[in-house]
């Protein structure tokens, strides 16, 4: 139990540390990759909490997601390398206050709430994977399908928003180049 608490705490600290780096560094690529490693540490926390499938999934998904984040950061920032060290924050005091309040309230709740009996034994990993599969394609199938459709819709919508507006002028231009 103490071993588990130790590992959860270590990965938790890593997640928090990288999370702080995200908003402390002025280099955008560093910021995106710090977020990636923060998410990876969260994935490792899942592993430490014996939730193997979700942990591995988190680690896998975030690698691609945050790398894509990195390229957008480079595209849309004035100073992606952080060489100029410019300040890109606003309403700082209010934000710090809001952050501290959010974290504080959650921590207070975590300590004060009565969580009831805590289970010591987790089902083993192979069992979990199997049971999650059964859940996905059984009781929660509708939710799972909905999530899939949602992500498809979001992809299509995002692409539609992102591609340039086709006016007659630039569509003629495009045919020209092809």
């Amino acid at each position, binding site marked *: 139990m103490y071993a588990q608490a130790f590992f959860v705490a270590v990965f938790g600290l890593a997640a928090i540390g990288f999370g702080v780096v995200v908003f402390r560094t002025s*280099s955008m*690529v*560093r910021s995106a*990759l710090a977020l*990636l490693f923060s998410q990876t540490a969260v994935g490792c926390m899942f592993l430490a909490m014996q939730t*193997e*499938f979700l942990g*591995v*999934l988190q*680690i*896998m998904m975030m*690698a*691609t997601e*945050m*790398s*894509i984040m*990195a*390229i957008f950061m480079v595209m849309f920032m004035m100073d992606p*390398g952080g*060489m100029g060290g410019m300040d890109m924050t606003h309403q700082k005091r209010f934000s710090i206050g809001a952050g501290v309040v959010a974290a504080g309230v959650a921590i207070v709740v975590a300590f004060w709430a009565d969580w009831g009996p805590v289970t010591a034994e987790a089902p*083993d*990993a*192979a069992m*979990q*994977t199997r049971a999650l599969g059964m859940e996905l394609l059984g009781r929660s199938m509708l939710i799972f399908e909905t999530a899939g459709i949602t992500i498809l819709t979001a992809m299509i919508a995002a692409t539609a928003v992102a591609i340039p507006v086709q006016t007659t002028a630039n569509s003629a231009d495009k045919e020209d180049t092809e």
Partner: protein
Amino acid sequence: MNLAVVLVALLGSVWLLAVIEGWTTTGRLRLTATLLSGLAYLGRESIVPRTPDRIFFETAPVLLLIVAVLGAAVLPLAPTLVIADLATGALFINAALAYVLVALIMAGWGPNGAYAMIGGWRFLGQLIAYAMLIVMPITAVAMRAESLVTTVIVVSQDGLWNIVYQPLGFVLFFIAAMALAFRAPFDLPTAPGELGGGVDAEYTGVRLAVLRLARLTLVITLASATTVFYLGGWHGPLLPPWAWSLIKTLAVAVSMLLAGRYLPRIREADLMRWCWILGIPLALLNIIVVGLLVLVVP
């Protein structure tokens, strides 16, 4: 114990692969030349480019090496000879290999050079092309084994290897694995003729040695994955199981190596187009066919 054996096997395979690579390019079979030139890297001057992102520049080669070794950790050489027999092994190897992209972006951004940076971002485009073709064939393999455990996947191929059971999946996975290992003809991020080395361009000395070692290890890891998922892993007559695993892995690695010699580098636009228009529908078809087979054939 397993850890040591697997690492030694990995290093040995890397060395053999390097020797064979030298053999195909120079036409001479020299067993020690690879070791010597590897050692020579250690003695060479390590040049650091002007104003690099030092953290990325230093970590990228090491991260690539770690990722390749982690991927190999879930691949069995023999029924019990595996570093970590995870319950989610087939997913874990995807997770580990996803960080190849992270390492290359770091290696591309770190040195603060144009060739390297274009190479790094190019690999992001390449990932968008190949990623689905890694995951979806593995899904079909797991469907047949009814498990994500790599040893169970090998056991499920007893009698009929997956290369026969789902040849389409094998072809897609093999091509995607070459793209993931950025071997020719998919060497867009390094592309000697276009980017003068790309992500390799700014690395010298010890760092280049680590980077080269990592690239070869990555090829071995992917060849080993191909063996485990499609070529029946350790199955084979007469020889001990581990020997079969090694032989198959090396054969796959060498065929990846040779394929690149006889092909020109693919255009990035073509890679993207073919992977999405042809590759993904084929991978879906593969999943459907395997699903039908699993349900129909007892």
